[in-house]
């Protein structure tokens, strides 16, 4: 059931794709040893990749916005690693849930006050300021944003228990 998690995305590898066996010696290039280190932040070659500075500065601005965000951890039952998202990037529950569905490759479905996320085997829950585990969707979005400390996507019996407890 974990095959859809797309674990390749975060697979740790040593070295960049391809090895360096046949690199001819040349004094103008970054040294071949670079290929054997784990993927570090890209070597600071000025002007590479050749992307217009205008484009880079637009991307940087987006990154900066991201840095001052409200990052919360997202765990999913059964997944080996957690993710982190900036809940300020979303303007509502539907936006957030779509993002989670895309990130974890699953379907959460529609929220209803009465039945929670009935029909899906997953229920999105969050830990609030008091440490309680709450179902996502009950309170207004702004209140959720300020009280959510951590997200958890629950599966199976636990999820159903949480949903029907509402």
């Amino acid at each position, binding site marked *: 059931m974990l095959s859809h998690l797309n674990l390749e*995305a975060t697979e740790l590898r040593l070295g960049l794709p391809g090895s360096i066996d046949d690199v001819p010696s*040349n004094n103008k290039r970054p040294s071949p040893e670079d290929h054997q280190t784990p993927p570090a932040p890209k070597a600071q070659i000025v002007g590479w990749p050749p992307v217009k500075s205008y484009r880079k500065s637009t991307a940087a601005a987006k990154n900066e916005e991201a840095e001052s965000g409200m990052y919360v951890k997202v765990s999913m039952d059964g997944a080996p690693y957690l993710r982190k998202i900036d809940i300020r990037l979303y303007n509502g529950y539907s936006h957030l849930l779509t993002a989670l569905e895309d990130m974890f490759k699953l379907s959460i479905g529609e929220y209803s006050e009465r039945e929670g996320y009935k029909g899906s085997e997953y229920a999105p829950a969050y830990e609030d300021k008091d440490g309680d585990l709450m179902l996502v969707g009950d309170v207004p979005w702004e209140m959720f944003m300020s009280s959510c400390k951590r997200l958890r996507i629950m599966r199976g019996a636990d999820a159903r228990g949480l949903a029907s407890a509402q």
Partner: protein
Amino acid sequence: MCLFQFQSVMNYFPEEVLEHVFDFLTSHRDRNTVSLVCKSWYSVERFSREKVFIGNCYAVNPERLIARFPRLRSLTLKGKPHFADFNLVPDGWGGHVYPWIEAMAKSGINLEELKLKRMVVSDESLELLAKSFPNFKSLVLVSCEGFTTVGLAAIASNCRFLRELDLQENEVDDLKGKWLSCFPESCTSLVSLNFACLKGEVNVVALERLVARCPNLRSLRLNHTVPLEVLQKILVRAPQLSDLGTGSFTHDPDSETFIKLKNAMKNCHSIRSLSGFLDVNGRCLPAIYPICISLTSLNLSYAPGIFSNELIKLICHCKKIERLWILDTIGDKGLGVVANTCKELQELRVFPSDLYGVGNTAVTEEGLVAISAGCPKLNSILYFCQQMTNAALITVAKNCPNFIRFRLCTLDPIVPDAVTNQPLDEGFGAIVQSCKRLTRLSVSGLLTDQVFLYIGMYAEQLEMLSIAFAGDSDKGMLYVLNGCKKLKKLEIRDSPFGNMALLSDMGKYETMRSLWMSSCEVTLGGCKTLAEKMPWLNVEIINEHEAGEGEGEASCDDRHRVEKMYLYRTLVGPRKDAPDFVWTL
């Protein structure tokens, strides 16, 4: 009939007839050719030419331009070398437009159109432009810098017949001025307005009114501060738009505003080109599905907020797309969808999304192969990728013999073939051999002199070549210089080419627009030799570290390697506006 007989027959025609015939020649290359035939053709041509293209602003000067073409109405100027885009040219290098505007104003030129690329445009230039040319109609600035919203206000206020204000990817100091409100009520002539690159807010009420009173408005590109509510109102007033750049595209998809937007979009039957989405909520994208079916051009390369599955859903609607610019978040799978859906695709650009971190979302050779197999009309590509293989490039070459522009950029500049670990020489060799009409090529990845042998041998139409971290010896550069007869622009960085290659055929550089070499093996002595022998070239050395020391001791050593050299043919000798750190030999 041979040319002599033809020419003498033509000379019996009055000049008006010649002029009328020349009217049908729209390309500047054709007009340039025609002007070389004989003195009388030169004369007729120069008095009738209205549009002039100058690919290097330092190849001529304003005085010569005006003297030769007194009826000039439309001017295109390019300034800095291409590698300036990637921060390889220091600030203050040059490329100022002011002297050109000043000279044309003084000479009474009836300027109507000005298009500038990679030039420094000050507010004073814009103010002078706005006040000097009463019939001025069109200003297009691409990758320029040096101006603020004050300059834009001058244009808006003074150009009574302005049709086009198109700002593409400029670095503008947005002083949050009220430039948009400066368009007077009497301005109703706008056809095209693009301010997507501005960072500050605009007066949205003024914007809506401007749109409402310009019935010929066809192209409108907003910046990211214009909210979706305003976009909706604009679309209601301007359903005739054919080119739209959205501002912010994020809103509650269940709201009334959003429903109104959807309806307004449905009414925009003419939109063929779409861009923007700098701020985007993926759930709002279905609003554009109704127009996707008619789109021929789509630029989502500034929209990192669209997740790949949403991107794919969107693309499925775009069956008539001819030009597509996207981020590599689309993935190989997404490119497969493009290949299956976009059968009219001619130009594809895939940009890297992860410029600062450890990229793991990039596309690979698989995506490129899929596109080449699925899109028979593909002729232009810019592809940033994580890895590449010779086999893939060979397949692409076989599938797409029609490439005019082929630019491949591996995120690691010297990555070898991902499967065989060999250099990518054979792959690029296949491209140049198969694509007989190739005019522009950028190579990357692990490359030896061999790839340049292929390029020299097969790339007969090549006009522009970009090389980085490639080759083993001078032979590589020699193959290119000897082989590519139509070469106009050659730019090289971090490659082991030295004086031997530089000096082997000095006359070649007079047939080219320019040559850039940085972090190569050429020395000061080599550059000096070249400058001495070739008076029609400006050989400029850029010495960032030596700035302020003048021609200090160390920098005078002829054996010293030159960090950056830019040479270009010119009719007017060394330029007078070179800063301290630029040394014209």
